[in-house]
C-alpha cells in the first residue's frame, strides 16, 4: 500500500506548513459526500490518531485513516496549474468516474 506526493507537491506542502508555523504533515482522505458519492479531504495534521497510517514521501509525512486508505491506495497527489488557478490534484487509480468539476468521484 502506498500513497505518493510528487516532488513539486511535496515542496508546496512543506512551504505551506512552514508559513502556517505548526503541523506535522498532510492528511489525505475521502468522505462520503458530493454529487458522485465521495470527495477528497486534504488537510494539515496537528495530531495523529492511533489508527492512522503514515507514509513518508519526498520528505513530507502523509497521514491516512484506515477507511480512506482502501480508496486511496496507489494514489499520487500532484500540484498543478491551470491558467491562473493552481492547487493539488489527486491521480487515483481506484476512481472509476468523477463529476464534471472533479471535486467528487465514484469507485
Amino acid at each position, binding site marked *: 500500500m502506498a500513497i505518493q506526493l510528487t516532488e513539486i507537491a511535496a515542496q508546496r506542502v512543506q512551504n*505551506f506548513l512552514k508559513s502556517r508555523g505548526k503541523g506535522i504533515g498532510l492528511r489525505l482522505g475521502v468522505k462520503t459526500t458530493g454529487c458522485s458519492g465521495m470527495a477528497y479531504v486534504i488537510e494539515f495534521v496537528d495530531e495523529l490518531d492511533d489508527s492512522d497510517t503514515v507514509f513518508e514521501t519526498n520528505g513530507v509525512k502523509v497521514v491516512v485513516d484506515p477507511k480512506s486508505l482502501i480508496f486511496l491506495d496507489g494514489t499520487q497527489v500532484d500540484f498543478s496549474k491551470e491558467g491562473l488557478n493552481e492547487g493539488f490534484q489527486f491521480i487515483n487509480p481506484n476512481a472509476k468516474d468523477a463529476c464534471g468539476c472533479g*471535486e467528487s468521484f465514484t469507485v
Partner: protein
Amino acid sequence: MALLQISEPGESSAPHQHRLAAGIDLGTTNSLVASVRSGKAETLPDDSGRVLLPSIVYMGNEQRLVGQEAQKFQSDDPLNTLSSIKRLMGRDIEDISQLGNILPYEFISDEIQTVPRIKTATGPISAVEVSAEILKDLTERAEQTLGGTLDGVVITVPAYFDDAQRQATRDAATLAGLNVYRLLNEPTAAAVAYGLDQQHDGVIAVYDLGGGTFDISILRLNKGIFEVLATGGDSALGGDDIDHALGEWILEEAHFEKLDVVLSRRILIAARAAKEALTTRNRTELSINYAGQHWQGCLTIEQFRLIAKPIIKKTLTPCRRVLRDANIDIDHISQVVMVGGSTRVPLVAEMVKSFFKREPMNDLDPDQVVAIGAAIQADVLCGNSSDGKMLLLDVLPLSLGIETMGGLSEKIISRNTPIPVAKAQEFTTFKNGQTSMSIHVIQGERELISDCRSLARFELRGFPPMVAGAARIRVTYQVDADGLMTVSAEELTSGVTADIVVKPSYGLTDTEIGSMLKASMEFAKEDIDSRMLKEQQVEAKRVIEAVDSALASDGDSLLGEAELNNILLHRNNLEQQIELSTSDNLKQLIKAVEVASENYVAKRMNSSVVNALAGKQVDEVNL
C-alpha cells in the same frame, strides 16, 4: 480535474461548498487582490505575473481599459486616462475644486446628479464607476485564480475616510457585483497582516509612505478591538518627491542644453531606478541619452541620503502631531508597522526607527501588506477559518451627531466606539403644537454643524400637536459593521416613526446650506398652512358629528321642516367641502352651520332644562 487546497484539520468543506473570499486594497496609485489558500495569505498575480494593478482606467475610443493597459495612454491622452480617482470618492464638486489643480479632468455636475462626473471620450463617468472598473478587473483575476465565484470580499479604506467616502467605496463594489463582507481600515489591515491582532493589547503606529501620499495612524488594540486613536499625514508627500529631488540633482550635474517633456520623463525614470538600486547597494551608475545629449554619472548612498533626508523628515511632523492628538507618549508605542513601497528605502526605516525608538516591522512586502491583511480578514468572515481567530472589530472613525437648536451638534455616538453599535437619545419639540421634526444627521468632531459634514436629513411628520417639551422623540443611530448607518426616529407617545438609510449628501457647502435654510423657511410657511387646514378639517368633522347626533336624538320633535332643511343644507354643504376647501373657507362654512343651528341649539337647551326640571319642586333645584 479539480485543483484542491489544503484545509485546516477537520474543516474540509463538502464539494462545491468552498467559499472563496478575497481581500482588496483599492489604492490611489495601485490596487491589489489577495486571498488565503492552503492556510497562506498571498497576493494574486495576473497572467503576466504582476501583482500590482495601476489604479488607472482609460476611457477613450469607445473602449475601457484598466491597469497597465490604461497606463500606456497616460502621457498621450491624459484627459481620458483616469488616475488617482480615490481622491474623488465621496466628494462633491466643491470638495473637488478645493483639491486644487492636481487632477486635469473636466467635471460635469448638474442639479439632479450631485455626484460629479468626469467628461471623457466615452461619456461622463463618476469616481464610483471608475473604481468599479478597477474592482471588476481584480475580481476577474481572483475568480480565475481561485477557480470559482467570489462569495465576498473585504475592501480596505483609509482610516480617515468619512461615511460618504466609505459609502462611495461600497457603491463601487456593488456596481462591480461584489458582496462586501466588510470595509476595513488600511492601517488595521496592515496590523492584521503582521498578526498583531493575535497579540497582547498595545498601541501600534502604522507608517504608510506610498508614491504620492503619506499616512500615519495610531491604533490601540484592546481586547480584540482596534481603535483608531489618531490619523494624520500629508496627501501630497511620497516617494515621488524623492524622485523629483533626485531629478533636480541630475539636472544640476548634467547641464542639459534644452529640456523637454520627454527628457524630463527620462530623468525621472533614471532617478527612480537609482533610488531603487540604492536600497540594496552603496552606489549606482546613471546614464541618460536623449536627442544627442548625453550624461553619465554616479550616485553614492551618502549623496542620496543628503537629497532624500529633508523629504523623509517631512513625514515626522505629522507623526509628532498624531502622537499629540492621540495623547500617547512615544515610549508607549509597542509596534511600528511599515506600509507602502517607499518604506523600502533604508533611510526611511532608519529615520522611523530613531523617531519611534524601536525597530519597525517590515518583513512583509510593504506594497502587499494591506491586501494580505484584508484577505486574512475575508477568510475569517466567510467562515473558512475559525482556528481561534478573533473576529476583528473596527471603530467609528468620526463622531455621529444630530443638529439641535442653534445649529449645534449633539453627539449621539462618539468616535472610536466599536462597531456595530446602536445608540438612542430622546429629544422633544420646541414649539407648541409642533407636529413634525426635521432630523439632520451630521458627522464630525466640531461643535457647530457648519463645521461638520452633513450626512442626511429627514423628517418625522404627523405626530399629534402637543405643548412644547411634551413630545418624546427617540432618535436611534445604528452603525453596521461596515461603518454605514441607519437612523430612525419615533415619537413615543403616538408611535409615529420615520427612518432613513444614510445615503450621504456628499458634503454641503455654505451656499448650499444657505439655500437649504431658505427652503426650510418656505416649507415652514407651507407646513403652517397645511396644519391650519388640517385643524379646520378636524373642526368641521366635529361640528358635523355634533349636528348629526343632536338631530338623531331630538331633531324631529324640536324642529319644523323648514328649519331642519336649512340646517341639513349647511351641514351637507360643509361635508362636501371638507377635503376640497381652504382653511378660511372651511371656517366660514362651519360658521354658517353654527348660525343655522342657533335657534335649534337654544331650543335643545330649553328642552333639556324643561326635562331636567319636570316633576321637581322649586326647593329641590340647586340654583
